[in-house]
């Protein structure tokens, strides 16, 4: 009798397991297409992660509201949000989980350090991946036909930053710090190349981690080397305290950073010491984006202020769904065949892909903190 119960239970468990990964339908028979969205939703970068997730969600909600039809049948999109905590190891676990759940595509991840290891799992499963914000060149250099991004990469950004520092800020001696993540290190390497090529001397190359808050030792040794610019490849939770500690130690060098610093939170963390800091962001400033102003209204009505990458996550979803429409299917293999032909007028600007999955000819914009807000210096194409 007990054995009978047990085997019935086992059978039902197997039934449940088998059910996983199958296509789901709603009660009225509309097929549900699941799309993964991965970003750090906990930890120090959760504000940026939530921003990405909301950007993707806004696009999904709008597409569902208008209605989507594939192969003559109405379908409904469902966003499956996962948290990778900005941790490479968690990222691969989460990626495998999404693959097992049978998602048709993934929007993410946010960081380069998480996007790169996860991309192998999506590639092996043959699922398209579009990262809104991973900028490390290594991501698209792996030769995966599944890896795409909608933002200018570190080579493009680092080059613009290096040239700007020498040509426009008149910098001669630079100190470079990075947070040892794929993003921070990659960006710092590209900056170093460009700055050295433009004629600046690199007087210090230091490292920290993406969890540190104490940079006094690094900054003091940089002070001793009389650098007139400190470049930081990393994110705002480190950049904010770094700006404060530079002022406290009496450094006269300016602080320059990439898109990891170019957000509201950096100014909040650095306080008055944020004044004068320069940072870049791939793409156009929000107000100069073709659909920027209108997007801002729609987004902020629902989720509050935009942190930084939400428009890119939104465009990533739009591009994916446009490819599904062209393929007239959500099957990953067919969508992958349609993705290279992308020519999309997105919120962030016109988007096309090159052979590697990078954006063709992405712009980079430089910003400076003036009176407690980021203001545009110039856009480099």
């Amino acid at each position, binding site marked *: 009798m007990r054995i009978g119960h047990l085997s019935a239970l086992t059978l039902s468990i197997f039934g449940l397991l088998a059910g996983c990964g199958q296509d789901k339908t709603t009660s009225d028979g509309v097929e549900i297409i699941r799309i993964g969205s991965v970003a750090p939703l*906990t*930890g*120090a970068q*959760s*504000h940026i992660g939530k921003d990405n997730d909301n950007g993707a969600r806004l696009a999904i909600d709008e597409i569902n509201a208008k209605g989507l039809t594939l192969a003559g049948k109405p379908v409904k999109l469902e966003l499956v949000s996962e948290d990778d905590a900005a941790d490479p190891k968690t990222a691969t676990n989460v990626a495998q989980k999404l693959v097992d759940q049978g998602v048709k595509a993934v929007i993410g991840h946010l960081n380069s350090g998480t996007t790169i290891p996860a991309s192998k799992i999506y590639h092996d499963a043959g699922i398209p991946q579009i990262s809104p914000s991973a900028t490390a060149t290594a991501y698209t250099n792996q030769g995966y036909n599944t890896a795409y991004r909608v933002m200018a990469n570190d080579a493009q950004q680092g080059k613009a930053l290096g040239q700007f520092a020498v040509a426009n800020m008149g910098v001669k001696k630079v100190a470079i710090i990075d947070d*040892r993540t794929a993003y921070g290190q990659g960006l710092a390497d590209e900056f170093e190349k460009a700055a050295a090529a433009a004629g600046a001397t690199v007087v*210090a*190359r*230091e*490292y*920290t*981690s993406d969890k*540190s*808050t*104490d940079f*006094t*030792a*690094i900054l*003091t*040794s940089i*002070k*001793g080397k009389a650098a007139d610019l400190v470049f930081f490849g990393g994110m705002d*939770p480190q950049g*904010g*305290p770094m700006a*404060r*500690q530079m*002022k*406290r*130690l*009496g450094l006269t060098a300016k602080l320059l950073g990439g898109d990891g610093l170019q957000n509201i*939170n950096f100014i*909040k*963390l*650095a*306080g*008055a010491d944020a004044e004068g800091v320069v940072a870049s962001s791939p793409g156009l400033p929000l107000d100069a984006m073709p659909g920027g102003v209108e997007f801002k209204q729609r987004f902020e009505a629902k989720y509050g202020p935009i942190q930084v990458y939400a428009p890119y996550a939104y465009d990533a979803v739009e591009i994916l769904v446009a490819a599904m429409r062209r393929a007239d299917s959500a099957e990953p293999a067919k969508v992958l065949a349609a993705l290279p032909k992308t020519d999309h007028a997105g919120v962030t600007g016109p988007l096309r892909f090159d052979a590697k999955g990078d954006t063709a000819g992405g712009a980079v914009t430089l910003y400076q903190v003036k009176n407690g807000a980021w203001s545009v210096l110039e856009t480099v194409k």
Partner: protein
Amino acid sequence: MDIFIQQLINGLVLGSIYALVALGYTMVYGILELINFAHGEVTMIGAMVALAVIGALLGAHPELPGMMVLLAGVLVAVPACMALGFVIERVAYRPLRKAPRLAPLITAIGVSIVLQNAAMLIWGRGYVSFPAILPRGRHDLLGATVSDLQIAIVALSILTMFGLVFLVNHTRLGRAMRATAQSREVAELMGVNVNTVISATFIIGSALAAIAGVMVSAYYGLAHYYMGFLLGLKAFSAAVLGGIGNITGAVLGGLLLGVIEALGAGYIGDLTGGFLGSNYQDVFAFMVLILVLVFRPSGLLGERVASRA
């Protein structure tokens, strides 16, 4: 040379914060022979409570002078942490006082995890920034820069430590603490209320932790729910370096560790030709911990039983 002095100053400031936290570890160890691993989290709670009060006050009355707001924050954070320290001892350690020593060690780690997660639920997962209410003055000292904040941190730490030494050596409670440290049973026979003394030890240690927490968040300009973890581990290393259970040792260990860290991180890059960088800063504390445990397990000032408390 001025760079050396700057690193030294950085180290002393950091070290005086470590010393304050290390005192909490060492006092509890002196009396209970228990390593209170939740102590770092008490520091974090102190910082978070103070920031919450400061934020609320500034939100309601932005015209208030900065120092007054800060004082209000500290005046709420200190009693809050004292109460927390009392509750931790009462709930997690007292029922296990006669249990094997491993048991309270495990509840200590449990309390630490509970506090971290509680803080994450209350104050969120992101960094909380310290508002710009502090004086921003800077002074020149032998070519190095010293800020008002750094002077305040060191001065306040020294003041607090002298207060503690006075309390332990010249008051009735202090005598009871020293007696309990020597022998709990005999102290009890002599009419010392051991439970009160142990509670008082936790309360005092937590008050110091609250002050240290506010200092750390003011110094780095931010606070977050896991800031207590690394700070606690380093302060523990400082306590072991000085000789755990020894009050003077904790202060000495804290200051030494701060200076070792600052100088180590500042010069390791140049000394190794860039092979090792200042990112190895956090390694120094634990290298020191290992070296002490191998070569002088009783710490620099030993564990002089008579004066531990």
